[in-house]
Each structure stands twice: as structure tokens, then as C-alpha cells.
């Protein structure tokens, strides 16, 4: 691992902290996915990983490669933009599909409609 030795200490520490933060947040999100009781609770949990978790890891990657090659490398912004745009769309589609399925089956797990 010769390229790791070329990184200055501050960048290495910052990369390490960002990587660990992202991984721990993702793990907490998937623990929620595993342990919550109904689908409507579970759909909240993994968003911890798909927002802040992947954000931290993308920041770590941008910082690492920018410092390594001494120029700004920002192509990770592509994944960031993709995640920011697509995560709400997919999860809203999925939650609406689940709501439709539960309502047509008359399941009692369906959350009540908004009051007004």
C-alpha cells in the first residue's frame, strides 16, 4: 500500500473519521431495518445510511483522492447528486405501493390518514 504513505497526517485522520462515521451510521440504519416492527417504521431506518452515511463516505473519498493527486477530484459529486435525487423518489414510490397493497387488503397495519 504505497499510496497510503503519501497522505499527510491531517488528511489521513480526517478520512478515517469520515469513513468510520459513515459506516457506523449505515450500520445503525440497518439495525433499525432489522428490528422495527411494521413496514412503515422500517422504511425510515435505512435513510440514515442513504443520506448521511453515503455522504460521509463520499466526502472521505473526495478528500482522499484530492489530497493524493494534489488536484480537486470531485466526480464523487455525481453519486451524491444521484442519491439526493433518487432516494426520496424510490422510497415514496415504495411507501405508496405498500399503502395501496395494505389498503386493498384491509390490513390493520395501515397508518390513519391525516386529520384535516
Amino acid at each position, binding site marked *: *500500500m504505497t*499510496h*497510503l*504513505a503519501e*497522505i499527510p*497526517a491531517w488528511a*489521513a*485522520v480526517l*478520512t*478515517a473519521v469520515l*469513513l*468510520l462515521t*459513515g*459506516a*457506523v451510521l*449505515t*450500520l445503525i*440504519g*440497518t*439495525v433499525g*431495518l*432489522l428490528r422495527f416492527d411494521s*413496514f412503515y417504521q*422500517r*422504511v425510515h431506518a*435505512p435513510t440514515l*445510511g*442513504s443520506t448521511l*452515511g*453515503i455522504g460521509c*463516505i*463520499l466526502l*472521505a*473519498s473526495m478528500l*482522499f*483522492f484530492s489530497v*493524493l493527486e494534489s488536484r480537486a477530484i470531485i*466526480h*464523487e459529486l*455525481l*453519486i451524491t447528486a*444521484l*442519491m439526493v435525487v*433518487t432516494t426520496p*423518489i*424510490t*422510497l415514496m*414510490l*415504495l411507501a*405508496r*405501493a*405498500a399503502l*395501496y*397493497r395494505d389498503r386493498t387488503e384491509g390490513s390493520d397495519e395501515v397508518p390513519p390518514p391525516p386529520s384535516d
Partner: protein
Amino acid sequence: MIVKLLMGTILLTQILLVIAMAFATFRVLRGPRAQDRVLGMDTLYVTATMLLLTFGIRTGSILYFEAALIIALLGFVSTAALAKFLMRGEVIE
């Protein structure tokens, strides 16, 4: 010292992400309903993207970034298609 710190952190990050993927896989396998499995698949895609990015940092190669981008893109398309299928019973009408 710095190399050891970075290598250790990257290894720990990868272990945590693999545990997260195992939890998501459990949700895919155990259901209990179709929407839970789709949610597990979506989480699996996001976590796989992160795992590939950490591989990229570990090897210092840009190639892993492109694989991560493709996984993120296909994850969006497949989850949207599966949600549409759950809603309507068909993907392309």
C-alpha cells in the same frame, strides 16, 4: 503509523458495512412481505456502493468509483421498477 491507522480504519469500515449488508440480506430473505424485500434490496445497493468506494480508497484506484456509480444508478432503476410492479402489477403499461 499513518498507513497503519488508515489500513485499520478502512478494514473496520469494511467490516461494519459487510455486517450492515448482512442485516439487509436478512430482511430480503425473511420478508415478511414483498415491500420489505424491496426495501432490503434498496439498502443493499446503497451499502454496496459505499463498500466499493472504500475499496477504491484502499487501492487508490479510480476504477472502483465507476462500478459504484453504476450500482447506484441500477439500484434506483430497479427499486423504482419493483415499486411500480407492486403498485400496478406491471412495469411497462
